[in-house]
Every structure is written in structure tokens, then in C-alpha cells.
């Protein structure tokens, strides 16, 4: 699995934000949209089409699991799998390296 993740290309923004939203708690679809809005302070608005298009792919890839709905069967809850968490972690590490390199280059260029 680790080697698979190493080969994983950078995650698309929508996928990254969905995984990020699910990393803190299990959420239903609209909850994910709200959480993304909150985390990005309204700068990234995730529509339902993009959300479920990505959720379908994440479910198929086994990065996210669908939990049975509670009282309202329409509301299915989604949970981040260990493999999804690992993919998110890898992406965060990659972005962290990008940020560090960017900061360093900007500082060097400004000096």
C-alpha cells in the first residue's frame, strides 16, 4: 500500500478537501460540503455534483467507506478508511514540501 501511495499523483483539489473534511469526523454529503466551506473560510465552494462524482471514485478506490444511514435513510454517512488517511497524509507531506521549498525560494529571491 505504501508503494502505491508513493506513486499516487497529486490529489485534485476537490478530492483533497473531501478527504480533509472526513479526516476529523464521519460526515454525510451536505456535511462534507459545509465542512469544506468552513475549512477554506468560504473560498472553496464544493457543489453536490463534484462532491458525489469524487465520492464515487473514492468509494471505488476504497479510500472512503459508506456507512448505513441512521434515521433518515437518504442520508448516508461517509468515513475515511485507513488507506484514505494514508493517501491524505502523503498528500499533506507533499504539499508541506512544496510550501517549504516555495518559502525558501521566495526568501532567497528577496534577499
Amino acid at each position, binding site marked *: 500500500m505504501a508503494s502505491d501511495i508513493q506513486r499516487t499523483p497529486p490529489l485534485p483539489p476537490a478530492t483533497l478537501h473531501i478527504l480533509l473534511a472526513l479526516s476529523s469526523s464521519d460526515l*454525510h*454529503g*451536505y456535511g462534507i*460540503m459545509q465542512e469544506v*466551506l468552513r475549512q477554506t473560510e468560504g473560498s472553496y*465552494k464544493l*457543489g*453536490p*455534483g*463534484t*462532491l*458525489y*462524482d469524487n*465520492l*464515487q*471514485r473514492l468509494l*471505488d478506490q476504497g479510500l472512503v467507506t459508506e456507512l448505513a444511514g441512521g434515521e433518515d435513510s*437518504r*442520508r*448516508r454517512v461517509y468515513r475515511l478508511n485507513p488507506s484514505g488517511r494514508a493517501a491524505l497524509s502523503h498528500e499533506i507531506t507533499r504539499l508541506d514540501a512544496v510550501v517549504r521549498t516555495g518559502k525558501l525560494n521566495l526568501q532567497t529571491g528577496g534577499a
Partner: protein
Amino acid sequence: MGRRLFVAIVRLHPRPFRERFEAELLEAFDLGRASLGTAPLLWDALRSLFRQWLLRPPMPGPDVHIAVGSASSQHGHVPGCVQLEAYRIRPAAKASGIMLALAMFGALQFATNHWSGPRLQNAMGAFRHAVGLPISRVEGPVAKKGAATVDVPRAPDSIWDDLAEKYFAGQPVLRALDSDGDYRLSAAEIAAAPSVLPMLDKNRDGKLDVTECLDPPMRDPVLMPLSPVLRQLDADRNSEVSAAEMRNAAAALLILDASGDGQLHPVEFLPERGVNRTLRFF
């Protein structure tokens, strides 16, 4: 209005996706339209529609299990089982295939109808020759659009040699071009045509007229176009082969190379009438 549009767009999604997420999509739309706006959500649904049909792999349908009766199962052992994956080609793939096939067909039609240059003729001829199809002979002024072609099946070489021998007897041009006398015009003989043809210009007027191109009793300007070779050489159809036409002789002759092998076989330069007579026997 906005919701109806959203529902319509959702219903255009692939069936497996729709059945799986339709209720949640509508709920998310109802809850999110106040904060996110109707128009952005509709645009988002349209983008999802595009991605689902064109970019996403098909969702597998339910697998089918078929128990296979066997000798062992009849004796109380574990029955054999074949699993058939219910993989279906998605409609978008079918549509893409149909469009691609139509585009290819259209391009080929356009090329054959509007670009009937010798290279295309030769390429098509080489292809037909390679796959064993009858070669297609040009029957008319190739320079004009829509030159008709006729399919010519193959026949033993001896048949063509007999016909060619008789035909060459009245054709000084062919006799001059066929330097090795094998009744075929090789690539070298075709290439040498611009230098060979001026030797037939007995009256030194810089062009070949009917008296220099045909032997009696065929010496009639009306008969010149009946010879495929002379028809190609006499590009302007004035019953004379001018100096310019002689210089262009190699290219003009290669137009007759229906098989695309760079040389001319009797089947490619004998008059259609002779060819058709021969065909009756095959």
C-alpha cells in the same frame, strides 16, 4: 425552476451513479442552494454530467453466477460455477465509436473524391494488391475530379503477355518505352520516358503527333485517347504529346500504376476493351 433543471441534469447522469446518489444530490442541492446559489450548483451539476459520461470508467453491474451441471455435481460433489462479469459498454463509448467511424468514413470518402492524385491512387492500389482485392484501374482523365474506376481481377501473366504482344505491335510509344521487351514498363523504363519519347519525334517538331504515336491502321487522332498510355501522356487532349508533356511523362505514366508497385503491368495499360474481353474468361 432551478430545482427542476437540477433534477433534469441529475437524471441525465449514468444510471448506476443516479441510482446511487440521486437522493443525496437533491438533498444537497436543496440545503446548499441558499448559501451557494442556484446557478453555481447547476453549473457544478453540468460539469459532473460531463465527467461522468466522458471521464469516469463504467460502474460494473451485478455479477451473474451460473451453476454449471457436471458429472461431479450429479454425484453430489460441489457444483462448478462460472462467473460472468456483467460488463456493459457505456453509451458514451458507443457514441464515441460511432462518431469516430463516421469521421473516418467521411475522411476516406473526401480523400477519394476530392484528392485523386497519383499518390493516393497508388496507395489505394497497393493496399488492394496487398489484401488480394482486384486492382482498380482509372478509366478517364485522372486530372478531373470524379474519374471513374473499374475493378480488374487478376489473370495469369501469359494471358496478358499474349494481349500485350498484339497491342504493342501497333504502339510505337510502348515499344520505345519497353526497352527490354518484356511487355512491362519497369520503374527504370518509366523514369527514362522523358528521354526516350523525344527519339520518336521523327519530324523534329518538338512534339509527337498521331503519326508518331500510332502505327497504321490505327493512325487516327480519334483513337489516341483509347490508349491509356497516350491518354495519360496527352494531358491537354489535343491528340499530340508536346515537349512539356514528354518531360512530365514519368509522372503521367505512374498514374496508371493501379497496383502501386512502381511499374506498369499489361493489366494497367491495355485498353479497357481488351481487358474486358479477357475478363470474360475469368
